[in-house]
């Protein structure tokens, strides 16, 4: 038997002797009952009015944050059309040209796009909601007409 097991065995024997010699608990039980009898029992504490108000406020704030968060997420995840179709607004739009749907359109970014017609070029910066007429420099032969349109980037 190792030293560890020997010591543990010795401890257990000591514990048995200790238990055997320790006084019975009859008097202790009576004393405990007497002590308990004169001890007031604590009631489960209900929330006070300020605590209830604070809790209600927290709930309102949490709900508001949740609603705002959901709205933000929905706004961010709303799909942007890859090739938005230009539309014509019924209300007069200042500095905005009406845009016939047959014009060729090139969207260089989801927001910025160009369109060309005979003698005019249009530019949008809001995904096709508004189109502005962009003045063209005169072509070498003195005309502003062009038969084909190419758009390079956001600015040209």
């Amino acid at each position, binding site marked *: 038997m190792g030293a560890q097991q020997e010591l543990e065995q010795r401890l257990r024997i000591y514990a048995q002797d*200790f238990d055997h010699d320790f006084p019975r608990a009859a008097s202790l039980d009576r004393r405990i009952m007497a002590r308990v009898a004169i001890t007031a029992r604590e009631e489960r504490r209900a929330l006070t009015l300020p605590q209830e108000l604070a809790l209600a406020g927290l709930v309102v704030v949490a709900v508001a944050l949740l609603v705002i968060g959901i709205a933000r997420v929905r706004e961010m995840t709303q799909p942007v059309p890859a090739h938005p179709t230009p539309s014509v607004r019924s209300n007069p739009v200042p500095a905005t040209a009406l845009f016939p749907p047959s014009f060729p359109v090139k969207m260089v970014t989801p927001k910025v796009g160009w369109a060309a017609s005979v003698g005019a070029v249009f530019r949008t910066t809001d995904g096709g909601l508004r189109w502005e007429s962009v003045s063209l420099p005169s072509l070498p032969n003195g005309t502003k007409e062009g038969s084909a349109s190419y758009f390079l980037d956001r600015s040209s």
Partner: protein
Amino acid sequence: MQSLGRPAWKFAFVLVHDIDIAQEIVQAAFARAWASANTPSAEADFRRYLYRTIMNLVRDYGRQRARAAMLPATPAAATNPLDIVDRRAGDDALRAALRALTVRERQAVYLRYFEDQSFAETARIMRTPQVTVRVIVHRALGKLRRELGSRTVPNQVAM
């Protein structure tokens, strides 16, 4: 209460080495358990709660004693109640070695070897990770071995 009073008393006694103080602590622990609205009702949970309360009360008692020790010394009692009870159990050397352990080590050793609790249950009662309890017990056994090894042969024969 009938089944827990005596084990709780023994537990408190091992920690404070004074049978009257131990009894007082156990009474206070039961009173606290009775008074508290958070006392668990299941027996195993209640036992752990009661033992933890005893440990807290023993710690408070230790602090009071430490404060009292700073006051002018009072004459010691003629007979220490510990001598009446504790010496009945044989193995004087082991008794003395146990008293040399820290309170935390005595808690672990008592629960493990006097009450034969598992390490898991001892850890739950002491609110300590099981691995920590194993370390405490291991360290305590090492101390006991060293303490017993340094004692004279006649003391060891007393077991």
